């Protein structure tokens, strides 16, 4: 692997030679979003699956699809369990990815163990699918601490609330790995509203200029809280933005996990092989409100939501796998059992009242507390001991 902080003269030239197409055809997304399995669960004709030169995708294998389906079912159960826990007052807030589970699962499954993921606050299911403990993942939303897992353990950045700021962290992780000659790929995630932020631009540009192995995944769920995509961007698609940075863009049906695995799998492979960064826009829908604190009826019609219910990522996969004879009642029951086990883990883990430690306030500000923090820590300790004595 060439080690250089400088981009090659023409980042796309190698890919162009490889596919025998123009730079524009390489960088611009395919004429239609890539879809393999339609909303009714039937496989699209081969010619419609993504066969344009430079945009050719292979159907993932059966084992991969079954593993993905299992994670989809778990992810849906996690979303619904967490929303229930918020209603019961067990969690402060939960931004649900109900309806976006295909994106969540594919984001985790397309990566190898040595790769990194940089998720947003709505990507809890992706974080868990990557292997992070479910209860640790939810610590942030329960309110015990502003994060519950060690990002280095599963190579998952801490879930990020300030929009697109985490994309740059992904760029930095990829840059460091590249300088050391490691073959790490970074998947950096954001939503459609986030593409309006300045750091989206800076991250894509830095990744392209330094020719870094980063796959940017935009989950276009159509809304930034209440504001629809039309108010964020009038670009032909968000994937078209890639060409402005000199990288390849692609759009994919974000409720079709078969297409997502194919598109993200290929993007990760190309990035690992040295293609530079890629941008994938997944068309999906936030089926529920922004969070429990939001009222989606104020800004969208039930009829619109109903259209997307028909495109649900779970039901189409269930139909497809059943029709293929890959999923029977016994296997479905086994998967449901696994999903229930995770839900139980969440219920039990989050129902338990874990006492917080007031002195933790001072412990993690610096590697060694400053004299000022030591003073403040003593102040609080004294206050608490007097309270205790007065009891």
């Amino acid at each position, binding site marked *: 692997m060439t080690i250089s902080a*400088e981009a090659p003269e023409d980042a796309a030239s190698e890919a162009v030679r490889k596919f025998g197409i123009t730079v524009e055809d390489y960088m611009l997304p395919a004429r239609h979003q890539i879809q393999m399995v339609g909303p009714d669960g039937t496989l699209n004709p081969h010619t419609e699956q993504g066969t344009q030169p430079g945009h050719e995708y292979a159907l993932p294998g059966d084992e991969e699809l079954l593993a993905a389906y299992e994670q989809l079912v778990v992810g849906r159960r996690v979303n619904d369990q967490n929303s229930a826990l918020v209603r019961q007052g067990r969690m402060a807030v939960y931004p649900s990815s109900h309806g976006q589970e295909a994106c969540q699962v594919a984001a985790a499954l397309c990566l190898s163990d040595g790769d990194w993921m940089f998720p947003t606050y709505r990507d809890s299911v992706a974080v868990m699918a990557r292997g992070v403990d479910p209860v640790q993942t939810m610590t942030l939303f329960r309110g015990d601490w*502003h994060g519950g897992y060690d990002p*280095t353990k599963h190579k998952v950045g801490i879930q990020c609330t300030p929009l697109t*700021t985490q994309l740059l*962290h992904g760029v930095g992780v990829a840059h460091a790995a590249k*300088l050391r000659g490691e073959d790490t790929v970074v998947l950096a995630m954001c939503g459609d509203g986030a593409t309006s932020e300045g750091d989206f*631009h800076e991250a894509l540009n*830095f990744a392209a200029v330094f020719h870094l192995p980063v796959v940017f995944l935009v989950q276009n769920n159509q809304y930034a809280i209440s504001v629809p995509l039309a108010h964020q961007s009038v670009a032909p698609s968000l994937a078209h933005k890639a060409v402005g940075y000199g990288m390849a863009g692609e759009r994919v049906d974000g409720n079709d996990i078969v297409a997502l695995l194919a598109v993200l799998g290929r993007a990760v492979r190309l990035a690992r092989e040295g293609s530079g960064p890629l941008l994938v826009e997944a068309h999906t829908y936030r089926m529920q409100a922004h969070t429990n604190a939001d009222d989606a009826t104020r800004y969208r019609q039930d009829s619109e939501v109903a259209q997307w219910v028909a495109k649900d990522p779970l039901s189409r996969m269930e139909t497809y796998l059943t029709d293929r004879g890959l999923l029977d009642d016994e296997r479905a029951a086994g998967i449901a059992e696994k999903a229930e086990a995770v839900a139980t883990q969440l219920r039990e883990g989050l129902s338990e009242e874990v006492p917080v430690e007031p002195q933790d306030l001072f412990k993690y500000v610096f*590697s060694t507390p*400053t004299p000022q923090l030591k003073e403040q820590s003593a102040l609080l300790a004294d206050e608490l001991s007097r309270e205790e004595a007065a009891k």
Partner: protein
Amino acid sequence: MSPTITTSSEANGNVSAATARAAAKAAVVAEQAGPQTITLAKALNSAMADAMHTDPSVLVFGEDVGMLGGVFRITDGLTKTFGKDRCFDTPLAESGIVGMAVGMAMNGMRPVIEMQFDAFAYPAFEQIVSHVAKMHNRTKGAVKLPMVIRVPYAGGIGGVEHHCDSSEAYYAHTAGLKVFTPATVADGYRMLREAIDSDDPVMFMEPKKLYWSKDQVDLDALRAEHAENTARGTSSEGRAAVARPGTDATLIAYGPSVPTALAAAAAAAEEGRSLEVIDVRSIVPFDDETVCASVRKTGRAVVIAEAHGFASVSSEIVARVQERCFHHLAAPIRRVTGFDVPYPAPKLEHYYLPGVDRILDAVDDLQWED
């Protein structure tokens, strides 16, 4: 695999007095032995070069820091010596520079990044406040960010708009950031080495009007001092210094105001008044002990800073000293700071900046007749 780049943790495991001495021996620019006259710019440059020699995970990047050597030439020669992987130019985007450095620090590197001017660092404010300062806290110490953000700051150079801000209070107000500011050539070397060694992020505020100030400094002695501190696990980090001893009143200053305070103390001495000058050096953490020991001794204090006085580092210093030294004070603590106006145009800046006369007027006001 690049043979010259390893992770910070690997590198740290090996840092010993011996390797530090070896690095010192292999110092980038061959200098003559013994004390010599160098600038603050040269001291900062030597600190980065020595750190890069010692630890292959130390990287330098920013705008124009490569072949140009930075607009102030602080990174001069680093690309030539260490190659384009170790010192390089980035696209012109400060949030991108800081955000990328966060990721690099998460992944084993020790980035030392340059914000070209104080007021050009503001696009990176979100990254600094929301991530650089908080990552260690959010992850309960699982992720440390050993990174240095160098900021040429403050005025006195006749700079046009947006080139002369005193932005230290923004950073000092943010929990999780260390804020250092050297005032002498030797401290330029000493403190930048300490900042690079720190496992916590450091805002390194460089008084740009002092870049070309000169002093007799023995770089080899400073290298040996750093090696010894590394071996012993000691340092001057977080400590203020007595820049000039005195008995009648204390002038508390930092960064660009330290030479002004020293000039005021020299002028006061001619009038028979002995002023002690404290160089704060580290705004965060703050050395209450050294500052308060001086004020308890003299009983009078003036705090001097270029920044606006309102809600500033100088107000914090006054509050701290008042809380700790009230019964030792013979007079209210005075401040001499910049006025609460946007940093003025070059032809007006001398009205704005704290000067010797304004400091001496404040000293005269410290109720000597009582």
